[in-house]
């Protein structure tokens, strides 16, 4: 079994090291413009939050998979998970913010032993869109998870699942042997309870990340190809496909450097820079809460340990006004969100 960077004592498990590489590293000659300079050109600096719409909560870094590109550096060897106390603090905030979307992520969020309790409690708060990011295989990992599709249905959870490709080879290469077959089975189980069907309000969306050092192509075209192949080969239905660019952090950064693609990839991101995408990057309407309750502008900043630039740093001290008044922390990895049509956790943004 592969291990996380942390378990391997890899240099890049240190977020400071990642930031050094991103900001100086191999572009010390200054050929690569800083992201700050880029957004200054279009008067978008400093990047400021708009109204809070999405609260993204990371329930822990524990995962049954060890995907090659994981920006969380998640895996079975990661033990960080959110406690009930922190969950309660999140629930208190959910009730008082105007955020319409709650987005639960991990690791595999379902592996947190209090996941179901949290979903039950949170679903009472009347959120419009209640997302659980499921890696699919967790549904097939152990009998105790087999009823997850029913559980999701009961709470009208919006399931967003990762699926790198409609072929076995590509999927297994990125996410591990056997992942494709298990994911297909899990998708069929979700379909069986009514998820993903046309006209169904049980939303099932897929997330596509390129399986290597290249950018995602046109989201719509990819969605059509995914739909056609999954329907023909496995009779699977889903609603939308979100194409997400891999950000050069954590395990994907490690892969880029080891495969000598780092420099080309960064150039490709900068070349594809789209100022229109800046307006809608997810940090502008999202707040990310880590397993230990700290607050970040986004999931990526969380993984780089860049806490919000505000007096309020923890969910227990939540204060909307103070948080609205912050500047978003940016760095070179932000090029990943603004390349081409742009991407965030919700797919293209421009």
């Amino acid at each position: 079994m592969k291990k996380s960077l942390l378990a391997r004592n890899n240099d890049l498990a240190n977020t400071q090291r990642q930031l050094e590489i991103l900001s100086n590293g191999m572009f010390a000659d200054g050929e690569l413009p800083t992201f700050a300079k880029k957004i200054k050109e279009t008067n978008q600096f400093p990047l400021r939050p708009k109204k809070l719409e999405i609260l993204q909560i990371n329930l822990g870094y524990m995962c049954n998979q060890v995907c090659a590109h994981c920006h969380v550096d998640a895996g079975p060897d990661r033990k960080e998970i959110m406690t009930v106390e922190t969950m309660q603090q999140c629930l208190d905030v959910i009730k008082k913010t105007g955020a319409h979307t709650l987005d639960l992520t991990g690791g595999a969020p379902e592996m947190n032993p209090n996941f179901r309790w949290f979903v039950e409690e949170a679903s009472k708060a009347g959120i419009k869109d209640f997302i659980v990011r499921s890696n699919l295989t967790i549904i097939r990992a152990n009998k105790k998870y087999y009823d997850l599709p029913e559980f999701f249905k009961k709470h009208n959870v919006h399931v967003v699942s990762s699926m790198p490709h409609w072929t076995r080879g590509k999927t297994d290469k990125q996410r591990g042997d056997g992942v494709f077959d298990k994911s297909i089975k899990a998708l069929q189980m979700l379909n069986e309870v009514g998820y993903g069907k046309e006209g169904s309000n049980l939303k099932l969306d897929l997330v596509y990340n390129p399986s290597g050092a290249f950018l995602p192509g046109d989201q719509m075209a990819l969605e059509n190809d995914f739909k056609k192949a999954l329907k023909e080969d496995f009779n699977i239905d889903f609603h939308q496909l979100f194409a997400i660019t891999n950000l050069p952090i954590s395990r994907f950064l490690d892969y880029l450097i080891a495969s000598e693609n780092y420099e080309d990839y960064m150039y490709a991101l900068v070349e594809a820079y789209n100022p229109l995408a800046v307006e809608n990057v997810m940090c502008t309407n999202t707040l990310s809460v880590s397993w230990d309750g700290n607050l970040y502008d986004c999931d990526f900043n969380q993984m780089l340990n860049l806490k919000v630039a505000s007096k309020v740093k923890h969910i227990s001290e939540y204060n909307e006004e103070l948080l609205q008044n912050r500047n978003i922390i940016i760095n070179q990895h932000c090029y990943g969100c603004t390349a081409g049509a742009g991407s965030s956790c919700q797919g293209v943004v421009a």
Partner: protein
Amino acid sequence: MSKTYYDPADLRKFGKITEWNEELGNKFFDYYGKVFEEGALTAREKSLIALAVSHTEQCPYCIESYTKDGLQRGITKEEMMEAVHVGAAIKSGATLVHGVQMMNKVNKLEM
């Protein structure tokens, strides 16, 4: 750096050809862009054609570009290799079919 005719970094500079003749350069890029738009053929089909042709033309820049383009579109390596074989088949067929010209000439010249 060792001296070679091809430098991968030159691909990024392709757009600069407009600097020495803006009008013709722009005309070329406009045309190029139009050709690859979705039309009677899908952009995906065009990408595979371009990949096959870049091999028969043996242009390393185009091979790199359309390999990447194919990956971005989710085209599999099996599909890409098949396209390359199509190019190779046409190229070898085109060589061989000229064998008929050779045969004609031999037949004409020989007693």
